[in-house]
């Protein structure tokens, strides 16, 4: 069976005035229907660049190498007609700033109708508005809210409208780039609830991007951790969050402490230094200047991939584990 989304050795490089900027440097992943995949990382780690390639939304100065397959079709090479069909019908995106992504002078319902009618010109207005009502109810809003304007809604409600819009053409894959970043914890919980409900109920694939590992830990089945444009660790979400292996993942997991964890009390954990500048990446392992466990070899050699357990590749020389993928590695491994 073809996965909903498959990436093979994807590289994204931006051409800038100051020279090439490698944002993504060789990422492999695959996503099945009914599965949710989280991508964790900090600003500049390449997670948003990666997501943009799925819908070929990367800016014109970006070069994409490798293949990005959505239901088996290579997004980067299909013609315009197919790309358009793919953009709403196969995969849709929920953006971060819901206030700026919605048109302030158009009713919410009309904005959801737009992709429906663009996608299928034969839909009658009555059918379209019926569908809008269904969609709004699917994300936990009353159907009547189709008649409101974005400013009449709260941040959480607007974010749900964005999700309803993404669902408009019955896509099988949803991409959500920091969908809850600007929201309060309670509203964040509501929005994440809606997303997980959709994945289960509609057998959708969800690619969720966030800087908050704990959000991904609760919402996703699998998690990829990115640093300096590469996936440094991946595995089952609970495993990655509860027993992080890579020193960077450990730092990320500790950054959002568990209430009640005695180790975190009065000892906030962080990493010295800043995320690397993609233009000027450190030699060897890109994480070594900040790594609390770095040894000499880290600054000179690229880190090997180790499998401390099956389906858990980690790019770190300090991690104990098999040197090759044990047994039949899931397509995601490298």
């Amino acid at each position, binding site marked *: 069976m073809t996965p909903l989304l498959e990436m093979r050795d994807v590289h994204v490089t931006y051409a800038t005035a100051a020279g090439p900027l490698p944002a993504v440097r060789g990422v492999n992943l695959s996503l099945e229907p009914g599965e949710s995949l989280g991508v964790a990382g*900090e*600003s500049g780690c390449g997670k948003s660049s990666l997501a943009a390639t799925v819908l070929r939304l990367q800016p014109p100065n970006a070069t994409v190498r490798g293949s990005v397959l959505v239901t088996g079709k290579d997004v980067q090479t299909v013609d315009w007609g197919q790309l358009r069909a793919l953009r709403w019908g196969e995969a849709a995106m929920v953006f971060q700033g819901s206030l700026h992504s919605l048109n302030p002078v158009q009713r919410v319902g009309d904005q959801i109708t737009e992709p429906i009618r663009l996608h299928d010109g034969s839909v009658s207005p009555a059918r379209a508005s019926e569908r809008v009502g269904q969609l709004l109810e699917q994300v936990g809003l009353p159907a009547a809210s189709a008649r409101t304007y974005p400013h009449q809604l*709260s*941040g*959480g*409600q607007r974010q749900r409208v964005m999700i309803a819009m993404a669902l408009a053409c019955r896509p099988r894959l949803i991409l959500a780039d920091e969908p809850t970043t600007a929201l*309060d*914890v*309670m*509203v*964040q*919980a*509501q929005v*994440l*609830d809606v997303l997980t409900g959709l994945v289960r109920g509609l057998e959708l694939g969800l690619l969720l991007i966030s*800087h*908050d*590992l*704990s*959000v991904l*830990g*609760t*919402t996703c089945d699998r998690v990829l951790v990115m640093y300096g444009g590469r996936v440094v660790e991946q595995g089952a*979400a*609970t495993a990655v*969050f*509860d027993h992080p292996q890579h020193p*960077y993942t450990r*730092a*990320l997991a*500790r*950054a*959002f*402490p*568990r*209430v*009640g*964890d005695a180790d*975190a*009390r*009065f*000892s*906030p*954990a*962080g*990493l*010295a230094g*800043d*995320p690397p500048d993609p233009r000027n990446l450190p030699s060897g392992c890109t994480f070594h200047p*900040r790594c609390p466990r770095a040894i000499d070899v880290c600054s000179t050699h690229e880190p090997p991939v180790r499998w401390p357990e099956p389906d858990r590749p980690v790019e770190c020389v300090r991690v104990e584990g098999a040197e090759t993928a044990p047994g039949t590695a899931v397509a995601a491994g490298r």
Partner: protein
Amino acid sequence: MTPATKARRTALLSTRGLGVTFASRDGAAARAVDGVDLDVGSGEVVALVGESGSGKTTLARTLLGLERPSTGSVEFEGASLQTSTRGLRAYRRRVQLVLQDPTGALNPRQTVYESVAEGLRIHKLVEQAQRAGERVVETDLVSQALSRAGLRPPGGFFLTYPHELSGGQRQRVVIAGALALEPEVIIADEPVSSLDASIRGEILALLLRLRDDLGLTVLVVTHDLGLAWNIADRVAVMYLGRIVEVGTTEEVLLTPRHPYTRALLSVVPEVSQQEPIVLVGETPDPRRIPAGCRFHPRCPAYAGGEAEAAGVAEDCRTRDLPVLAATGDHRAACWLTMPTPKP
């Protein structure tokens, strides 16, 4: 000495019956802060926790003299906060602010040096010290503040502009600017929420270190309970302009009494934890504060019949709760936990 007596004896910054009301466009008054008694003891780290619309930021701004209280008062060292220009200026030397977004908090046209030296120049601290016979120069004070904030070597940062720094470094510059005045209190409004995850811990550790080394008192305003667990001695939970639960961090976060605190704790995204209690309804509106307990329309204990069973459902709907007194004990403003004097 119990925490209670300790807090009472050394309260440095406190509010009594504080209320801040804004007139909104449609004429309805928004009671952003609606009766708050809060004590922040000397050398204490207090976290003020709440959702947006809870009034936590307004409370912080009022503590800094940026908003005028409509009722009640802000007290510093037991004396009411002066509202005269001169009084406020003297006060602000001792109570400083660290804002959420360090990128916006620095003037893009000022170098790091100027940003940090600004407070010194406004308060003429160098001149004052020199008149007192001390041999100080501004450069030394700026260097000192920068290294205290973890920017070393300080001289290397003097001529840089904010846009040349990373987010974490900018936040350190903001903190250095506040430290240059050698304040006694720092009020930090979401100090790490716009920073990268790996930087967060470093900034929080810096705040803790400043408390330990300089005896600084810190009030952190945040929506993040994990942050409170990381650094706070005491936690106050705000809902719709009131403090609904207050106590030591362990008391409030490990044995929460108020249903709202419990709900907040349950939605902190953590793996393998209790079932999240996702509250229905949206962020509360300070222009329409419900009668009775202000939380009852969203309260899971009220909706779930717990209040009914305890015989306080009527109170929840109709009787206003008293303002929680700042005694330092673990208290919650909830009819379920309060001794109800029957008429």
